[in-house]
């Protein structure tokens, strides 16, 4: 840019500039506070489950395996959340004994929850509007079959720290990726993003790429392919 050469009183400016720092800093602090503390709560809503559900009861007390409720279909697809019909196989009627006067609060909660379920859903034939923590976006094709079969092919047998060790139960395999919900008897609310409608725990692509783009997976398995393909269409539909 061609300068208009008439520089005037350059010296005076310095003192004026210094006192500008206070509002500047104040602004910055307010913005930082808003951005880090207020904003996340604004973005995410907390959605409770329709009624109290305990993985712990099912796994620890009843001894159910994950696959009893979350199973593969014959065509290789995964059921995900069980249908009402699947639940009703056991819960046709309230199974928990009605808590006596000396029952614990926990027993009471369980009983009330099951009663609410049986009366509100099973007997009315109404599917439960579960709030899923881990729902795949529509543009993702996630194959449980691929992960369940292929990942463990190596990671149960390979040398080194990436060996997951022989699992003592099939649940252990599920827990490789899923949180151990059987320990959680409280249902954490599902936090939904107001803009995207995704839950807070929805994985970002970079998390998938921790494995899919892992350099260790770019070996050739002797069959002319890599172990975990990172092509777009491997996961997207």
């Amino acid at each position, binding site marked *: 840019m061609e300068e208009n050469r008439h520089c005037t009183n350059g010296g005076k400016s310095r003192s004026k500039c210094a006192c500008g720092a206070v509002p500047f800093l104040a602004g910055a602090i307010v913005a930082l506070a808003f951005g880090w503390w207020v904003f996340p709560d604004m973005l995410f809503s907390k959605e409770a489950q329709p009624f109290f559900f305990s993985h712990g009861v099912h796994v620890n007390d009843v001894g159910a395996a994950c696959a009893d409720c979350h199973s593969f279909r014959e065509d290789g697809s995964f059921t995900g959340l069980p249908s009402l019909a699947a639940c009703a196989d056991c819960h046709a009627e309230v199974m928990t004994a009605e808590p006596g006067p000396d029952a614990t609060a926990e027993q009471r909660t369980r009983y009330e929850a099951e009663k609410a379920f049986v009366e509100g859903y099973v007997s009315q034939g109404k599917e439960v509007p579960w709030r899923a923590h881990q729902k795949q976006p529509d543009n993702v094709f996630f194959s449980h079959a691929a992960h369940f079969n292929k990942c463990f092919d190596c990671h149960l047998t390979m040398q080194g720290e990436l060996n997951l060790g022989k699992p003592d139960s099939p649940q252990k395999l599920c827990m490789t990726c899923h949180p151990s919900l059987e320990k959680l008897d409280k249902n954490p609310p599902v936090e939904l993003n107001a803009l995207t409608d995704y839950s807070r725990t929805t994985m970002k692509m970079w998390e998938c790429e921790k494995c899919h783009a892992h350099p260790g997976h770019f070996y050739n398995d002797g069959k002319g392919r890599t172990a975990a*393909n990172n092509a777009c269409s491997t996961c997207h*539909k």
Partner: protein
Amino acid sequence: MSAKKEFSVKWGMAIDLDKCTGCGACMVACQAENNLAPQADASNKRRVMNWLVVYELSNGKAFPDHEVAYLPRPCQQCAEQPCATVCPVVATERNEEGGIVSQVTPRCIGCRYCMAACPYHARYFNWFDPIWPKGMEKALTPDVSMRPRGVVEKCTFCHHRFMQAKDVLRTKGIDVYTRAVDGKHHCAIPENGYVTSCAEACPNGAIVFGDLNNPAHKVYQLVTGNDNAFRLLERLGTDTAVYYISSREWVRRLGDNYLPDEETQKPQQILPKKH
């Protein structure tokens, strides 16, 4: 242009133009399978979303010597793509075993550069948001995600069926890729285990789908060394995965641009040399 990727499995088609009657069943099957939205006025073909289009070909002769042929045109799934190389955001690529050119519409920014690049007009832009008549959204499949306005889409050889077929094998404990008797690696999906919606619908069997690298597959047998086979715009070097077959020379000649004194090409490089 980046280096061409070769895969041990290469899904492809052989489309028999002597069999196609141009009925359009494949086009409708494609739309239903891939969740395309219907259009009340589909008279402007340059605004009609069709991943698969059936073109009418004429031998150019006057009645009664006139002959007509119909040419279904899915995405040609080029090994040397004019489109994927130009996409600024990697929304389309050919990077997966099987050699299908993917199209990830949630990534697409809608610049339409790929459409300008594709000489087959296989790519379509969502000029408006898709609208289904009330209730018809219930007939949408869960296999293909919906696309909003402003993104480009195209035929993916019903890629979701490939994924589903692999899952069927996996749950049965079968390896997806196996070493076959010819010592090469093939996909263990049976030949009828993964078929595109268009090929499946056609009662004339005009569209044959399978692994172009697998000698056991019909598509391999139809295109390998077949002098009646050709590909569209072969001389561009796009190395497409869609072959056409016709016993009529005028049909084959319409597959590419020819100078008046040029002979109709014999199919070159019918199969990639490397495996």
